[in-house]
């Protein structure tokens, strides 16, 4: 983790810890994203080993494969129609979407005016129930919308 990022994140988390003790809290058991966070945290090393250094988990969400497929296909539908290979597996099974922040060397697009092209700093992978990692996409933090299937469902009023 870069010092810049650590200097932002760590104090926030420390304050969060203090605030939670002092304020009414909620049980971990009711947090729907806690389990997904654990999955993404567990796979952090493996993902980093495949794609590059990671300094944060930005989003973590578990959904049934049918929802993930619909989201995958919809988010690139402005340019192409593509059938996700996840259609070949049990659509009711649950996978986890992990969006990481770091530094990656996934294919970028050069400018035509000489403006430097920064490397991607966001990578999104899918993790099966058995821990299989599949690359979904990569890009720049803040420009990966819809970041997760639930974000996409919200735009559809779901």
């Amino acid at each position: 983790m870069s010092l810049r990022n650590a200097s932002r994140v760590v104090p926030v988390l420390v304050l969060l810890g203090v605030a939670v003790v002092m304020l009414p809290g909620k049980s971990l058991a009711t947090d729907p994203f806690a389990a997904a966070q654990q999955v993404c945290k567990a796979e952090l090393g493996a993902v980093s080993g495949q794609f590059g250094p990671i300094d944060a988990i930005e989003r973590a969400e578990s959904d049934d494969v049918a929802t993930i497929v619909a989201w995958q296909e919809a988010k690139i539908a402005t340019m192409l129609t593509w059938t996700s290979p996840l259609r070949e597996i049990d659509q009711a099974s649950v996978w986890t979407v992990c969006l990481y922040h770091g530094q990656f060397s996934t294919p970028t697009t050069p400018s035509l005016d000489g403006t430097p092209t920064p490397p991607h700093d966001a990578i999104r992978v899918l993790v099966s129930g058995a821990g299989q990692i599949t690359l979904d996409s990569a890009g720049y933090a803040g420009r990966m919308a819809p970041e997760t299937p639930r974000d996409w469902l919200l735009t559809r009023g779901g």
Partner: protein
Amino acid sequence: MLRHRTALAVVALTLGFVMFDATPVAADSSSNYSHAWENTGGNFQGMSNYRTDRAVSGLPSNYCSSPYGYDVVYQPMWFAVAGSGNNFELGTGHQCNDTYRYWYWGPSVNGVYTSLGYQTGISNGPMHTFQIERQVQGPDTIDIVYTIDGVTKLTHPTTAGYGVTLDVGLESHCSGCSVAWYDNYTLKYKKSGVWNYWSGRDGKQVNDPPMCGSWNADDVWISGQVASC
């Protein structure tokens, strides 16, 4: 309730330290390119590039099991369509001391790259013809077709319009690497159903150093890294 709040606090504090100890991010470095393009008139229906898969020296012996690793050198081509960061890409990737090589293809939509496939076991040396083509299949269907040596790697329908810029070259994410110069030969575009050679040397951009690049002819672009182009 207090026990739960305390547990959550401990988790948050612990997470803070865990994240602080997460894998350090290397110093930021932009991608280095040697690339050239054709964009006069737009309305492109396809592009073609005849080149070798060039050996890369200096790649660390890591990222050896899957594409798009951190230490990588690409030989890409981009069929760019309207909209910033929108294109279809086809290329060769080199990783793991150049022992892990693959052809890859996929779109970038608003700068977000999605891998639609790849083929491993590629050998350096032989010449190949790389093509991306926008084919009208019927009144309501237009396909993007990625081919290498005439073999279709993927076909998928597209809602994108004609190509606006055709771009080829070398993209390096390895500052310590070197790539001997090589030709991107017989660069062609397809327009109105006809293939034509690039002309006019519309544009180029080279991050020099460490990259090099130059036109050898109107339809031949030379790329390299730590080489004399």
